């Protein structure tokens, strides 16, 4: 991280001796940049098969995704070997993150952390708490914002947030790179995500920044690289091959992707009854 910051500092000095060049763009540029970013990811699609006299425009086809990967995650300040299994969706906005951490000096630990809309809970097994006697769902309402944030920090989330934000989305050029900024809404109001695009209009970095100190714990960064179609069922949707999540300069997740299924697989996130009735916290 220190090396990264040093490199960034050198680049900033070289490109902009006094300050980073930040140039806000107009509505036309915003539309063009957003479309380029969406197209680079393969988000807007149409098909005329069987359409005969129908010719529909494209629509955003990203809803559910399933990611399998391996790498490391932070466990009490230590980087621990981790297997990742992430199911997520944007309609409804939801995710189920299953981690298997294997410390060098102890047994493997398995966790399932789930969020949907304004509810968060931990599952003792997949789908726990939905059928009496089958697993335990433990409400974790104070984690709603953080869990939701990671969904919106994905490249697809940034594009969706930017389109939803309309003229509140900002396209800029900073130190030669195009950036897209968009305010989040709902439980994440007060957070802005900013993505940096590469020459192929793919997002290499996404930063989440809080508007005020009270939300400072939601300042996160994500680095994305090695984009390709990592799915078994090929869809032409580009997904990162490596994901690095950082908070306060510390790496929390470093995942190399094995598969990233983008064909809207069957992934559901029903809220267990005891979670629906759990007391709300400030996160709700």
């Amino acid at each position, binding site marked *: 991280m220190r090396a990264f910051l040093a490199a960034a500092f050198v680049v900033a000095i070289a490109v902009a001796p006094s300050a980073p060049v930040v140039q806000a763009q107009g509505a036309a540029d915003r539309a063009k940049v957003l479309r380029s970013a969406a197209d680079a990811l393969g988000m807007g699609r149409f098909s005329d098969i069987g359409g005969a006299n129908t010719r529909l425009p494209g629509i955003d086809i990203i809803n559910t995704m399933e990611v399998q990967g391996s790498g490391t995650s932070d466990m009490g300040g230590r980087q621990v070997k981790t297997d990742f299994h992430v199911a997520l969706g944007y309609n409804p906005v939801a995710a189920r993150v299953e981690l298997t951490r294997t410390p060098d000096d102890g047994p493997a630990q398995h966790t399932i952390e789930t969020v949907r809309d304004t509810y968060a809970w931990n599952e003792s097994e997949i*789908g726990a708490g939905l059928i009496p006697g089958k697993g335990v769902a433990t409400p974790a309402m104070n984690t709603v914002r953080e869990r939701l944030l990671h969904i919106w920090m994905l490249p697809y989330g940034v594009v969706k947030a930017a389109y939803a934000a309309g003229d509140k989305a900002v396209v800029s050029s900073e130190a030669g790179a195009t950036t897209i900024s968009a305010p989040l809404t709902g439980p994440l109001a007060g957070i802005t995500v900013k993505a940096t695009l590469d020459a192929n209009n793919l997002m290499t970095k996404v930063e989440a920044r809080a508007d005020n100190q009270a939300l400072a714990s939601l300042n996160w960064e994500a680095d994305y690289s090695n984009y390709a179609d990592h799915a078994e069922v090929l869809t032409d949707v580009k997904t990162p091959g490596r994901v690095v999540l950082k908070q306060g300069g510390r790496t929390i997740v470093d995942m190399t992707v094995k598969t990233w299924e983008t064909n809207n697989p069957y992934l559901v996130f029903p809220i267990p009854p005891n979670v629906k009735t759990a007391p709300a916290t400030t996160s709700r």
Partner: protein
Amino acid sequence: MAVNRRVIATAAALCFATAAVFAQTPAPRGPRTVNAPPKPTGTTPRAADGHPDLTGVWNGLGDNLNGVPNQIANNGIAIESETVARDLHSGQMVTVFPRLNNRPQNNEQAERAAALLRRSGSNRPIYKPEYWDMVKYNDHNANEEDPSNNCMPAGIPRGAIPSYIAQYPNHVMFVYPGQGGLIATQTMYRMIPTDGRKHTPLKDLDGTYTGESIAHWDGDTLVVDSWGFNANTWFDQIGGYMHGENMHVVERFRREGNTLTWTATVEDPDYLLEPWTTTPRVALLNPRPDAMLPESQPCSERDLAHIVTKEHH
């Protein structure tokens, strides 16, 4: 590999195209650029008993009911204009991307897009957790696993809106033409009494593809209640939605002018966590007084042996 994919995609595209041509559909003046449910026009004809008369050929949208534009609508995504689309189940807006040129897609692009478009809606049945992986596997491997891919009947409620309905005083007749090609399915028909009879006890029925259906009128809505199914079908055209022999389906048909709105509610205590209701689907009456249903193409599945990837409809 690429060649095989193209062959399969072409076969599927031809299947759609041919079915559309043979359906004697009206000739719209220009391309339809939305797939939102059509608004009804005209009066609703009534039978002698005062109930709406559902009789007619219900393929008036001008394209194949199984084509991608209609499949997107069936999945609950309504494209209402060149700039507005929404998910009818959740109400969430869906970003629209206007076409930037007239360049046609190749078959691979069209097939991959079709698979995504038909699955992007939010209205999904909620299975018991122990079946989540199986449903996902079914859809992931639909080329091999889809029970209707081998000239078998689509079943109910997958058959959805029949292409032809004939209404008589004591029964209705539904006809679902079969299709050739990769998603080859057999022609189905249903003769459904409306004479007030009761269901046969479930334990006394041998499971069938369309089950035992009886119907009654709830005001101006025809309610078709079915059970006694076999477990050999999936209950929607996408998704790998398997079911058991205890499935119970309630379909509701409502005619308004030249439109027919259909929903189905599926209950399956063995597989589903809760009943699931389809997003309403709307068919348009074929306005031609001489509209006829053509003979279905013979169903002879020849493509499955050539499939080399998991790409599918």
